[in-house]
């Protein structure tokens, strides 16, 4: 199988910089993945529609604004609505410990808190997809 992981890195919410998102995007590219990057201020609707058009295996959401719970909830609901819940969703950013189980209950697979190395993210994805796309 000659497949390459496709990852959408998106930055929902209102806050104004995407340094973290770009760092992870470049790291995943250097690990041999195809990274679709959409820039700042993406709505959950745009993220999910983009994920479908780009047929990604993974969505990585970078969040700093504190509105992570409703944003993640909406993304996960929309994915289900479109029959695209097989896409792996992970999150990164400043997310309080207590909120992680809440996000996981929506179906978010993994939260990377600040200080996580890009290596860990890459290893997580490679492990998850080691048997190919589900």
């Amino acid at each position, binding site marked *: 199988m000659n*497949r390459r992981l496709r990852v959408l890195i998106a930055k929902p919410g209102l806050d104004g910089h995407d340094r973290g998102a770009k760092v992870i995007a470049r790291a995943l*590219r*250097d690990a041999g993945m*195809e*990274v679709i*990057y959409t*820039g700042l201020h993406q709505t959950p609707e745009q993220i999910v529609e983009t994920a479908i*058009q*780009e*047929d990604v295996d993974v969505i990585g959401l970078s969040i700093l604004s504190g509105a992570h719970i409703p944003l993640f909830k909406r993304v996960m609901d929309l994915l289900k609505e479109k029959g695209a819940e097989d896409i792996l969703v992970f999150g990164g950013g400043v997310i309080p410990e207590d909120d992680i189980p809440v996000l996981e209950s929506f179906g978010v697979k993994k939260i990377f808190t600040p200080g996580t190395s890009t290596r860990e993210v890459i290893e997580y994805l490679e492990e998850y997809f080691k048997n190919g796309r589900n």
Partner: protein
Amino acid sequence: MEEIDKLLEDFKKRDRRALSRLITIIENNFYKIQKKFYLLLDGTQKSYIIGVTGAPGAGKSSLINLLISAFRKEGKSVGVIAVDPTSHRTGGAFLGDRIRMQSHALDKDVFIRSMGSREGKGGLSLSTPLAVRLLDAYGFDIIMVETVGIGQEDIEIFKLSDTGLLVVTPESGDDIQLIKAGNLEEADIIVINKADREGADRLYKEFKRELGNVKNSYGFSPIIVKVSTVKKEGISELIEAIDIHKRFMEDNRVFEKKRRERNLSLFYLLMDYTIRKTLREEGIILKDIESGNIDPFTGVKKAMNVICE
């Protein structure tokens, strides 16, 4: 196999998920649908294909974004394939063209797909023309293809398009040199983007002087248009230029010629793909040549037997 049949069926019902899944299969495992692919195409090529190329940062994606808006105002549906370079070392790619086009993300009559160039020559692999065929079969009125082009490689995208745009900017002082080297004569329209920047007028005059009497292989003189995507200026002039080129092709029977050439070029790409795929599966001939057991000429004879079996 059943999964593929279901996809093809969904595609015919114009399911977007099926469209995007099929593009992935084209990119990764085309052989899986190769035998059935023609069923999707039903012989017709109706979309108008616009190729957009130029150096990184010239403003191709920003331009396509505005062209989408303009075509949508005319009620036309638009499919976009945006190709960015794949890193030869890692195989990965940073696909950032969508950043400029996200205002169209929720438009049901717009479909945008990013692709890594992977191993394609001139930024174009077999995947790109196949994906264009698929968008065509899906029924988009307009298809735009963005590729990064430097010099000679531009030609590949122009072969794939009905109208080929080359985007240059006042900053890139070497563009005129490229013209003189004769690499760009197949561009139908030269877009001088960033016309809000200094030097655009001078560049325009230079292009006019250099290209004034130049005609391409079918007798068309490239049109030069100044655009500023930040100021949203020059877009209607560009649309007009595309229209002039289209009418020229209709009046001079160039359309059919272009499409025939495109079919031929796709045929070669498919043959190349099929031969390589078959030989990889067969295995022994490639190994024998590598190890020096047989010479390349004997290899060809053996390979022909395998392929024709």
